[in-house]
């Protein structure tokens, strides 16, 4: 720990007013017990810090993500119909289970030429998450997502036409790309979006 340096400019900069300001600002801000408890609960829910499953959320500088998207390693399985269905009651490590939960993926079965894609976004502390993309005119209120059973993630199943779709999530008012999906390389207006590809008949 370094001690505060003797600052040669200090004498000229300090004055009674400044001292008063400092004293005022140094007043501790009371910690709400419920808030503190929330933090500790939050940490308890996360994988322990040295778990190998963690991968940092890719971030960007201009429109940062506020929600804590615990981005776990995951493979976006691409766009075929024969994709793993999330099975209940799988006995696997928590990292694996969470990895499955975080992939946005097409689900088996087709509905009138469309495939259903399950969008997933991990954000245990968010109050609201919605899905936006070229399939809903980037309308933030069109597709609100629902919480998973354990409350850690947000889910939504969307029927999509075959082809390439660009999308993003809105987490408590802020745009966030899907940490587990490829980035759209198109012009994204400086705010990254993600890509999901739905295979199907040649359209």
């Amino acid at each position, binding site marked *: 720990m370094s001690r505060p340096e003797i600052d040669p400019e200090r004498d000229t900069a300090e004055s009674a007013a400044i001292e008063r300001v400092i004293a005022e600002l140094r007043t501790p801000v009371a910690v709400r017990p419920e808030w503190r408890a929330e933090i500790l609960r939050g940490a308890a829910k996360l994988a322990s810090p040295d778990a190998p499953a963690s*991968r940092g959320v890719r971030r960007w500088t201009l*429109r940062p993500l506020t929600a804590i998207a615990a981005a776990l390693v995951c*493979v*976006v*399985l*691409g*766009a*075929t119909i*024969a994709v793993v269905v999330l099975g209940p009651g799988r006995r696997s490590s928590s990292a694996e289970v969470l990895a499955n939960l975080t992939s946005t993926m097409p689900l088996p079965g087709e509905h009138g030429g*469309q495939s*259903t894609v399950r969008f997933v976004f991990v954000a245990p502390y968010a*109050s*609201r998450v*919605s*899905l*936006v993309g*070229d*399939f*809903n*005119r*980037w309308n*933030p*209120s069109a*597709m*609100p*997502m*629902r*919480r998973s059973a354990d409350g850690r993630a947000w*889910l*939504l*199943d*969307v*029927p*999509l*036409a*075959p*082809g*390439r779709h*660009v999308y993003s999530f*809105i987490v408590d*008012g*802020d*745009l966030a790309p899907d940490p587990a999906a*490829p*980035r*759209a*390389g*198109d*012009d*994204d*207006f*400086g*705010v990254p979006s993600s*890509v999901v*590809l739905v*295979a*199907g*008949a*040649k*359209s």
Partner: protein
Amino acid sequence: MRLTVIRPLIVGAMLSGLAQASALAQGGAAPMTAADLPSQLAAATRQTIVRLGDSVRAVGLPDAPLYAKAAEGVLKGATDARIVSAVRTLARELGDARAALGSVAGDAELVAGASALHVGASPAMLRQLRDTHVAGSGGNTSLATPLVALADLLARRVPASVAAAAIDSLVARGAPSDDFAALRAAVERDIDAGRAPEASVVQRTQGLLRNIEGRRRTP
């Protein structure tokens, strides 16, 4: 920043979603039309975009991507000028994609092709892929998946010629969509682990090709 306008979200709708076992979203399907352009656009801007959409439609290209791009720009707080520029560029890229992929290319392929062009694929690469595709599977499957995979690799700074060659070799062998997705995912893992993109692509592609070969041999 336009993002502030989206803050008052409808929390009620969110909460009701919790009660549903499977919240299947409605209508992700209807393609966008000019009428769906967000109201935040200035009249002049809207007109420009509508005209661009009209001209694109007139030559048989899909116009929905243009409107979607405009809507994306509005949501992300871009200036109108920026939005128009992005839409113009996309219109041009769709045209270039069609020129390279041919008039039988479907909308999904054109959109995928445009995205590949945007990240640096050359029209020649797209033409090559088309030729390979036609010669191989006879064009029954969609080129959208290989094109998206190509765009992905390019976005990850894989040297263009290497990316194109890899995708081309997979298309030539009639690789299924899964393989392209697997290639992308494997390359991403490799790059994240510090491997050189080029080496990763070459090696992973060879692995996939071997698998294809292996599957062919076993009846």
